[in-house]
């Protein structure tokens, strides 16, 4: 029949979102770079003949592409590529784990504040506002100075300073979703408040939550690099992208690659997660128009 030409392709919302995501070339590039960074950090150290903490004082400051050390060696003769890969494990893990922690806190606070509103909501959201008054780096460093530095503390502290934005997003979503028919229906069924909050409302806010989570990873990687660079995060001899830059300033004149290599890795990772978040925002909710 002639009408067949007029029929449109039916797509599920998921397929439509996937198509929109694929059109966002920078987000695709971001996803690809993240994959390379993750695989490189996970598998790379097994393929390399050097150990990230092996000190070879005879081969200090070997420049990149000179001999066996592809990215050169640092002030103790350690292979920079090996440290970059091991540092990637630490920095990317912190990024992901801190994000998960921040999401859990943010979602719980946001859901309770948005669901109950009134005094509960006001108190919780004013708490969010109050924590946001502290410039993140000041708060993070003050807390880091009061605690024993290490992998776990650094991760927890980054999460502690990054959950507020999520709480705001979730609060706004839950507050508006709880008035919708499906929520009213759940009330009518006699579902418990907790069930409505976390089985009905939060899953319906998944699009902005996923976007916030992606951007949160970028933020966490950035924060890790700040605290570790300043010496209050991951402690040597363990490597992280941030603490590899720790001594780089001293050797800036003689060994600039020590500063350039980890910085490029951080920038690549953070940019990729930011673009990925941007693409997800376009794909999951075309109406969300945050600049």
């Amino acid at each position, binding site marked *: 029949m002639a009408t067949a030409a007029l029929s449109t392709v039916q797509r599920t919302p998921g397929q439509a979102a996937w198509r929109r995501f694929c059109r966002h070339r920078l987000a695709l590039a971001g996803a690809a770079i993240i994959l390379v960074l993750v695989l490189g950090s996970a598998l790379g150290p097994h393929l390399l003949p050097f150990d990230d903490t092996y000190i070879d004082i005879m081969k200090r400051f070997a420049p990149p592409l000179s001999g066996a050390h592809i990215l050169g060696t640092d002030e103790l003769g350690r292979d920079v590529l090996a440290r970059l890969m091991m540092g990637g494990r630490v920095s990317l893990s912190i990024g992901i784990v801190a994000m998960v922690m921040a999401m859990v806190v943010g979602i719980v606070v946001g859901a309770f504040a948005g669901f109950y509103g009134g005094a509960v909501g006001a108190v919780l959201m004013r708490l969010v506002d109050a924590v946001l008054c502290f410039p993140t780096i000041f708060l993070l460093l003050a807390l880091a100075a009061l605690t024993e530095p290490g992998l776990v503390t650094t991760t927890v502290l980054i999460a502690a300073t990054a959950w507020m934005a999520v709480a705001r997003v979730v609060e706004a979503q839950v507050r508006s979703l709880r008035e919708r028919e499906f929520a009213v229906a759940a009330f009518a069924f006699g579902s418990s408040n907790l069930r409505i909050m976390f089985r009905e409302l939060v899953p319906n806010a998944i699009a902005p939550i996923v976007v916030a989570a992606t951007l949160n990873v970028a933020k966490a990687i950035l924060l890790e690099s700040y605290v570790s660079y300043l010496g209050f995060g991951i402690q040597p001899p363990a490597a992280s992208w941030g603490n590899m830059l720790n001594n780089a300033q001293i050797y800036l004149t003689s060994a600039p690659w020590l500063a350039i290599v980890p910085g490029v890795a951080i920038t690549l990772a953070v940019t990729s997660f930011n673009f990925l978040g941007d693409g997800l925002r376009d794909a999951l909710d075309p109406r969300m128009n945050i*600049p």
Partner: protein
Amino acid sequence: MARYVANRLAQAIMLLVIVSAIGFAILHLAPGGPLSQFAVSGQMTQEDLDRVTRQLGLDRPLPIQYLDWFGRMLKGDWGKSYRDGEAVLSVISSHLGATLELMATATIIAVLLGCWIGVLGALRRYSVFDTLATVGAMIALSIPTFWFGLVTIYVFSVKLGWLPAGNRQTIGDGSFLDLLHHLIAPAMVLALVETAMWGRFMRSSMLEVINQDYIRTARAKGMPEWRILTVHGLRNALLPMITVAGLQFPTLLGGALVAETVFTWPGMGRLFLDSIGYRDYPVVMGILMFSATMVLIGSLLADILYAVVDPRIRVG
């Protein structure tokens, strides 16, 4: 208007109370609490510590201690530095000028450059310039500030030798040109993130404005395009930027800390890190509270100023 200001003021005071409670809680998180300075030295016996605890009133219930501490904060008694016994507030104020100088310069650069990029991007939407600006802004927001500082030092100080690698002035010089020469690099580094933010917000604000009816009316009247864009477009697009300035303030302050570290700039951020290094908790806490209060006042001022220039806000 008076009601709006009173309302916002009440909110700000409530926030200040919560902020101070958080600050107080962090202070008591310190190993050994506020007494850590004595506990660390190891020269005091347990009896001495107990006596000092009683003298300083640290054996009282926490809420009472908090009220006492908060009262002293309000009176301007923020304690004394462990390092040299100087009052915390005077230590902070002696470093504040350098930080404000850096922040103001960076803001001026960011506002001018960011607005220009944003407006041009909005007027030529999806052009090559707009696309480059959007991608560039995203990358600028992703570069760690301190690393950008290192790269700047490497390029402009080490390789080209154009700019000094740090400090606020050459010792023994200190003329205006010398100060300016030292200011360029750190201000540029701090301005990068700010410019990106301003550009993005300005672009979306301008886009919103140029699609309004009154712009079309102005065009229909035959008003010259430059006049439409400046008098009607830019003026209205700039209004929400007041809020952006308020929102950006914490980031700007945090960025200043990092830039100061890289460029050994003798400001508040540098002082903060040095104090952390010396375990000088009163100064660390003082700067933390001071910066939070500055942010609070900044956002309060932004809200009030916005209500002054845009009467629609006062009702809400």
